[in-house]
């Protein structure tokens, strides 16, 4: 059997070597362990011993040629063995020692909300970026209250909840907390911190002074972030959805009666007061089940009839209108609706609503019943397609079967998106709603 003579491993760092002398020549006989060639590695020479005894039949790598270690450099055959070219091993491709390539930097692509504003990079803390992305808020819509306009997590939270975080007012967390607690508008507090930042002691000092008065004539108030958003959404709605308006007089006597009858018992049992709005919300929700198109939204070229009936109630706040929605109003009892309403309105006033609570609405009710307003036209809350406006309830003289009666009447208005809701359907909806409100004992059969 022929034995391969290799250029041996010569230590862990040596990779190549050059045979400087074949001590044995082709055809010579050689003993195992006898020096067969001399190899040069890194300026030193070393003798290599033969791995077997026999005849050095073939020299494959001559003197002076540098080859990698483990290259077959010669063949030794047993005495009497015939050597054929087949014994020569095929030149193998360079040893498959995987060299470690330079480390490729993997930059995570997804989930990195990159905010590039019109004037370059926007500085925001990581949590702020994430929250902004999750809620679809553009960082450029937020004015950061940190140093150099750094957007804090709190800035985004405030944006989401729609509370007043007046732009350009820089304040520490503790200052904000105190201001919120004491209901002080931060923009009116003079700051003494780094670059006029409002610190907690500044708010304390402000508290000590006399109360603030309203904004006088001639004041220029820069739009707060919330106001900007409201302004933008209103324009969007008014100029893209063609509104048509409908009004009807609704007699609220039966409902008011109904309410006064059930109120004491419910109040005792559930510790809450149902308001007229609760009844209206429920009636509207039930009505929507009969007229699902009023619960629809246009998305691109499709009309999506939303699967949940979440009725929003407009709440007036100093910064602007906020519309939290009561979830699944069609399937909720009056007490449930009342509970949700109370909780949402309270948190709306504290600025503690979540974005989901505001965005889930599918139909809105706007009531100015506490004002001396007979009726008014409301602008749709995009992307919704219907909004109900409620005016003041007044005692009116009404003709009924030829007789003059005194009834408590409220004017209810309906605005719809004429792109998807025709006049007939709108009229039908409103008419049916009026019918429901005037027959509470039937409408509210399941409380």
């Amino acid at each position, binding site marked *: 059997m022929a034995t391969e003579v290799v250029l041996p491993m010569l230590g862990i760092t040596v990779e190549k070597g050059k045979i400087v002398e074949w001590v044995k020549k082709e055809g010579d006989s050689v003993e195992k362990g006898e020096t067969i060639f001399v190899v040069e590695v890194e300026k030193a020479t070393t003798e290599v011993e033969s791995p077997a005894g026999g005849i050095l039949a073939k020299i494959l790598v001559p003197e002076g040629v540098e080859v990698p270690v483990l290259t077959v450099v010669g063949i030794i055959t047993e005495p009497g063995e015939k050597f054929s070219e087949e014994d020569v091993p095929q030149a193998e491709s360079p040893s498959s020692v995987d060299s470690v390539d330079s480390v490729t930097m993997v930059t995570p692509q997804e*989930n990195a909300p990159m905010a590039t504003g019109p004037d370059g990079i926007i500085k925001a803390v990581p*949590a702020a*970026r994430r929250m902004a992305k999750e809620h679809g808020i553009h960082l450029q819509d937020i004015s950061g*209250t940190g140093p150099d306009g750094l957007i*804090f997590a709190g800035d985004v939270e405030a944006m989401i909840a729609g509370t007043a975080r007046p732009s350009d007012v820089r304040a*520490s*967390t503790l200052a904000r907390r105190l201001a919120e607690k004491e209901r002080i508008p931060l923009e009116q507090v003079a700051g003494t911190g780094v670059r006029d930042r409002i610190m907690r002691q500044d708010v304390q000092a402000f508290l000590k002074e006399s109360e603030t008065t309203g904004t006088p004539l001639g004041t220029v108030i820069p739009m707060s972030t919330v106001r900007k958003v409201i302004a933008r959404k209103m324009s969007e709605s008014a100029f893209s959805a063609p509104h048509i308006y409908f009004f009807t007089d609704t007699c609220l006597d039966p409902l008011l009666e109904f309410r006064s009858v059930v109120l004491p018992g419910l109040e005792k049992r559930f510790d809450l007061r149902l308001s007229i709005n609760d009844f209206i919300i429920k009636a509207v929700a039930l009505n929507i089940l009969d007229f699902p198109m009023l619960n629809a939204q246009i998305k691109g070229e499709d009309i999506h009839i939303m699967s949940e009936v979440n009725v929003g109630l407009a709440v007036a706040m100093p910064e602007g209108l906020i519309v939290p929605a009561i979830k699944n109003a069609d399937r909720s009892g009056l007490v449930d609706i009342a509970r949700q309403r109370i909780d949402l309105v309270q948190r709306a006033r504290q600025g503690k609503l979540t974005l989901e609570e505001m965005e889930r609405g599918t139909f809105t009710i706007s009531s100015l019943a506490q004002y001396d307003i007979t009726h008014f036209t409301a602008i749709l809350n995009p992307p919704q397609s219907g909004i109900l406006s409620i005016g003041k309830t007044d005692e009116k003289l009404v003709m009924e079967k030829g007789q003059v009666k005194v009834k408590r009447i409220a004017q209810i208005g309906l605005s719809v998106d004429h792109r998807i809701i025709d006049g007939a359907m709108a009229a039908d909806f409103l008419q049916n709603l009026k019918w429901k409100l005037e027959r509470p004992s039937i409408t509210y059969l399941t409380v």
Partner: protein
Amino acid sequence: MREITYAQALNEALKECMKEDERVVLLGEDIGRYGGIFQVTAGLLDEFGPKRVMDTPISEAAFVGGCVGAALTGMRPVVEIMFIDFTTVCMDMIVNQMAKMHYMFGGRGRVPMVLRVNIGAGRGAAAQHSQSFHSWFMHIPGLLVVTPSTPYDAKGLMIEAIKNDNPVIFVEHKKLYAEKGPVPEESYSIPFGKADVKREGKDLTIVATHAMVLRSLAIAEEASKKGIDVEIVDPRTLTPLDRETIFSSVKKTGRLLVADEGHKTCGVAAEISAMVAEEMIYFLKAPILRVCSPDTPVPFSPPLEQAYIPDEKDLLLAVQRLMEYA
């Protein structure tokens, strides 16, 4: 519950383990007759005799390496090195032998030994007797690193360390030896890899080791008067590290301060900061801050040493800096 010192708690743990298992033996310089320079092994020579409580010559390599050999062959030794600073003279036995045998031998051979050391400056012991480079051991795979901050933790973790089959570096703290705390009389062990939330809070997280835990608790009261609610997480073991508890705390508060007495550069705090930045970046409302010892040897002169040690002042400043990020 009765209160005893950290040193007494350790003493109890050693005593209980030695009573229960005769394979547990103690070695170290001056641990027998003298009772250990911090009195952790006081009374144990009298109770268990010189065969099991061995005063060694100044031959760290021999007796630490000896413990490796003894552990390999059926014993469960607890060896003391007087100050962490002296581990340098037997580093080979710790890093190349103790830590690696189980792995190098492909799982054949266990080294169930505990190497007790202490860290912490503040006693004027100067540069060669006051270091806190326990992060070196956190860096070596194969070693478990335990860092108790209270007497309760000390006893439970020591009992676990002796029962655990892995080699353990048990890092005590010079200034904690005399601190008292409630400790149950019975035997109990605390599992490794379970951090302890020493104080719950919602505004910021302090991950702290050893004396930094106590210092953090001290400033937490002051901070709450200013309306800042601090959460303090004590990892208790650096290897294995309870990442989950740290992560969920950071998720909750969004602000992280890491406090450890090692040097700032390449210390325990650096590792925890990097780990949190890597996994929790989207929950950070503020940069991660570290409160550590400066990158200098420990100075001798008292005012210098005082300035050297990271203390309540440093913690409060860092807390305030963090709270500037709303």
